[in-house]
């Protein structure tokens, strides 16, 4: 099967296999991505992040249904943590999205972080491109949800939605501090729970004080995701952000930035791979390690040495 061609013809199996090829770094992954790249850039990418227990999966499910109601097709990537001990993972997000499974306008793929720390998996951005190339109008990316360290999503998404809930306890301050900068739109889920007013007020205050978002003051939308309440309004808030982002030029500058970062990252990877390969050919590497360890040589000099030899 020629995966890229089949995918572009609309084969869901090919779509699925393409993501696998990229995720497992199969030999044909680069070829597939080369063929698909011209077909990317059309989907709007929405990142959904927030602490564990905030109801991200349920909200993702409801947002997807809202976009379906609007006639848009939706690709979903749901990321769960990979166990650092076994390398295995339980990918359990799609259980909240079971009603979408049979909708042919939706495609849900679960991914394990496989060692990546920033809330996404290393291959998330490629997977997004694959869904984009297939033709989905919207791609929703649900991050792992560990709180503060989830900054990767900002670099990957056009719009970042941060989901919070009342009653998460003392660490909420820390979480809020960490996610203030990344949210384009905020949702307060479980808005029927105690403490919602306090959370809302606190969040408004913090957003007002936040100097980094002068151009766009992120709106806060209350929702009760499991009952579908407030989802309409949330989708509207997201839509407004998109319009603003496009009008202000932020949309393009973000995407340009993303492309730059991706190019640099690919370059880093390629160069790193090349250096390592050459290092094997260069030999003596183990000896060098030992001499650094014994303090006979210093590591800075050794690296300088290697670089001048390899990258002459």
């Amino acid at each position, binding site marked *: 099967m020629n995966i890229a061609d089949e995918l572009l013809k609309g084969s869901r*199996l090919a779509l699925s296999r393409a993501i696998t090829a990229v995720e*497992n770094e199969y030999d044909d992954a680069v070829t597939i991505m080369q063929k698909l790249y011209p077909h990317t850039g059309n989907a709007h990418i929405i990142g959904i992040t927030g602490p564990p227990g905030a109801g991200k999966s349920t909200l993702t499910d409801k947002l997807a249904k809202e976009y379906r109601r609007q006639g848009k097709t939706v690709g979903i990537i749901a990321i769960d943590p990979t*166990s650092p001990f*076994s*390398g*295995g993972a339980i990918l*359990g997000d799609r259980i909240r999205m079971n009603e979408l499974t049979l909708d042919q306008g939706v495609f*849900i*793929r*679960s991914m394990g972080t496989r060692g990546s720390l920033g809330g996404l998996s290393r291959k998330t951005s490629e997977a997004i491109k694959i869904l984009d190339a297939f033709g989905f109008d919207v791609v929703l990316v649900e991050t792992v949800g560990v709180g503060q360290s989830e900054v990767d999503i900002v670099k990957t998404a056009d719009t970042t939605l941060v989901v919070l809930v009342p009653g998460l306890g003392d660490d909420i301050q820390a979480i809020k501090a960490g996610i203030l900068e990344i949210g384009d739109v905020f949702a307060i889920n479980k808005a029927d729970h105690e403490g919602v007013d306090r959370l809302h007020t606190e969040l408004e205050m913090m957003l007002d004080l936040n100097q980094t978002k002068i151009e766009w003051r992120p709106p806060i939308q209350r929702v009760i995701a499991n009952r579908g309440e407030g989802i309409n309004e949330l989708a509207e808030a997201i839509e407004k952000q998109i319009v603003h982002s496009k009008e202000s030029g932020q949309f393009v500058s973000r995407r340009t930035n993303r492309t730059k970062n991706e190019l640099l990252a690919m370059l880093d990877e390629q160069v790193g791979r090349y250096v390592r390969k050459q290092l094997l050919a260069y030999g003596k590497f183990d000896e060098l390690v030992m001499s650094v360890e014994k303090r006979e040589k210093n590591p800075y000099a050794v690296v300088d040495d290697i670089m001048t030899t390899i990258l002459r």
Partner: protein
Amino acid sequence: MEKRVRVLVAKPGLDGHDRGAKVVARALRDAGFEVIYTGLRQTPEQIAEAALQEDVNVIALSLLSGAHNHLFPRIVELIREKGMTDVLMIGGGVIPDADIPALKTAGIAEVFTPGTSTTTIIDYINANVN
């Protein structure tokens, strides 16, 4: 990057006994597999479509209600219709020995009955997955 074996642990039919499915899911995770758990009451259509979207290597079906003769073959059929010819399909639960040959003919590679250790299942998957 190392390839990970992806397993869909699914509960077809209406029974709510998920102790076994969840124990197996966890054991597979601890053995280094990526496990997608579907939750209860999944129709054959939902299971087959989830398997396609997740591009799993293995589908592990758990059923304790006695509806296996009806549901397992139907899932195999749908998976094949989708062109996923290389998926390893296994089943487990309260399944009488007498039913097993027919299930195997239908395309269920192996059936694990009560008392099976998770190691047996893991070893079987490792030995037979594509």
